């Protein structure tokens, strides 16, 4: 029952019918990779699943309840990583995590240090995010997702700017999250490198050259 389900999502962006009846579901302990060509609507789909973009038709449900019924309860179990890292350049990594995660749950200094270390940027703790490299910022943003302690991860191109070790770390984090009963929806072009069976994938496919529907890729 611990699952997110999208049913017949339709969404227009101006003249373009971006999502044309996307239906998918993810259950506990599962990772769903969303692939598709540039402009096929991966980001839009993830933002629609968050509830950031209102849908024209269809609905998204979390544990059997429409997410519009109690968005705050849903967001409490959701960690979203978008194209933007959601970090303030003028604050240090530790301050960023303190404020961003602290608004959701109580968090201690030690926990922040541990998460930064797990994400391979222990030295970034006291450095303003503005002075970090793009890859390091992405790792700090991953530490935020990790610290949120949410059951559902929606990650949009989480591997952008990451090096090879970063991609391995990402696969490890997602596998650990799924192993602990969490759910992950990852929009990415690259293979995630998860062990076989730990992951399903759907491709957002162009229907009319403008819009997309989801097609499950069966191995």
């Amino acid at each position, binding site marked *: 029952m611990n699952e997110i389900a999208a049913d017949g999502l339709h969404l227009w962006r101006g003249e373009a019918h971006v999502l044309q009846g996307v239906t998918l579901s993810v259950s506990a302990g599962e990772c769903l990779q969303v692939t598709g060509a540039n402009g096929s609507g991966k980001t839009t789909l993830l933002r629609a699943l968050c509830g950031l973009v209102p849908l024209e038709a269809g609905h998204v449900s979390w544990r059997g309840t429409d997410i519009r019924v109690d968005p705050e309860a849903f967001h409490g179990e959701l960690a*979203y990583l978008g194209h933007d*890292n959601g970090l*303030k350049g003028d*604050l240090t990594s530790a301050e960023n995590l303190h404020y961003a995660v*602290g608004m*959701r749950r109580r968090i201690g200094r030690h926990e922040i240090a541990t998460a930064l270390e797990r994400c391979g940027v222990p030295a970034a703790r006291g450095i303003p995010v503005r002075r970090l490299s793009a890859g390091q910022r992405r790792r700090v943003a991953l530490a935020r997702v990790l610290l949120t302690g*949410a059951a559902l991860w929606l990650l949009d191109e989480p591997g952008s700017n990451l090096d090879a070790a970063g991609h391995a770390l990402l696969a490890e984090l997602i596998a650990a999250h799924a192993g602990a009963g969490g759910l992950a929806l990852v929009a990415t072009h690259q293979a995630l490198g998860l062990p076989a069976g730990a992951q399903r994938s759907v491709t957002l496919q162009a229907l009319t050259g403008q819009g997309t529907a989801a097609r499950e890729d069966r191995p």
Partner: protein
Amino acid sequence: MSAARIGFLSAAALLAARDLRLALRRAGDTLLPLGFFLVITTLFPLSLDPSLSLLRDIAPAALWVGALLSSLLALDLLFRDDGQDGTLEQLALCAQPFAGLLLAKTVVHWCLTGLPLVLVAPLAASALGAPNAAMPGILAGVLLGTIALSLIGAVGAGLTLTLRRNGSLLALLVLPLAVPVLIFGARATALSIAGASPAAPLYLLAAFAVFAATLAPWALAAAVRIGIE
């Protein structure tokens, strides 16, 4: 996980602390609107015939046009950075009432850009020849006026969040709504300087501020949601 969920007030306090810290790190940007206000109000006496009666006549206009333009200038600081670096969408997803968080941001914004205007208003007013007896009326007027201006302006800033050159459109959106503040504020100041009771325009200003505080959070949340869509 829900057991460890944090209350709204703690979350809002944390957000306020974050914004104060950011403002401290960019003190120049934060103080710019205040400097602008001081420059406008001091240029008036310099550019006019320095007779006290003339200065007193134009004092309300100089003070309030200065306050209005300065608060318009300050609006750029409110949501723009948060919108660009993605922290605003994280706020929308942090499982706290969005309208409340945006109101907290606006309150901090007022403390950083509106409150300083209130504090220097007596200085600017005395440079324009206002008698000391007029100060309480002027202070009360600027206090209520900047609160209303911050709240109205925040809605406009939310609506123009995604536009690249949002400054001119923001002014077009906000200025008509801010006209009542300008009228009643200037009237209160003029009455105070003339030695009369400014109670009537002050009551209207207060009503306007309460009205803005009641409706702005919801309008703000709706506007910013459209902006980050």
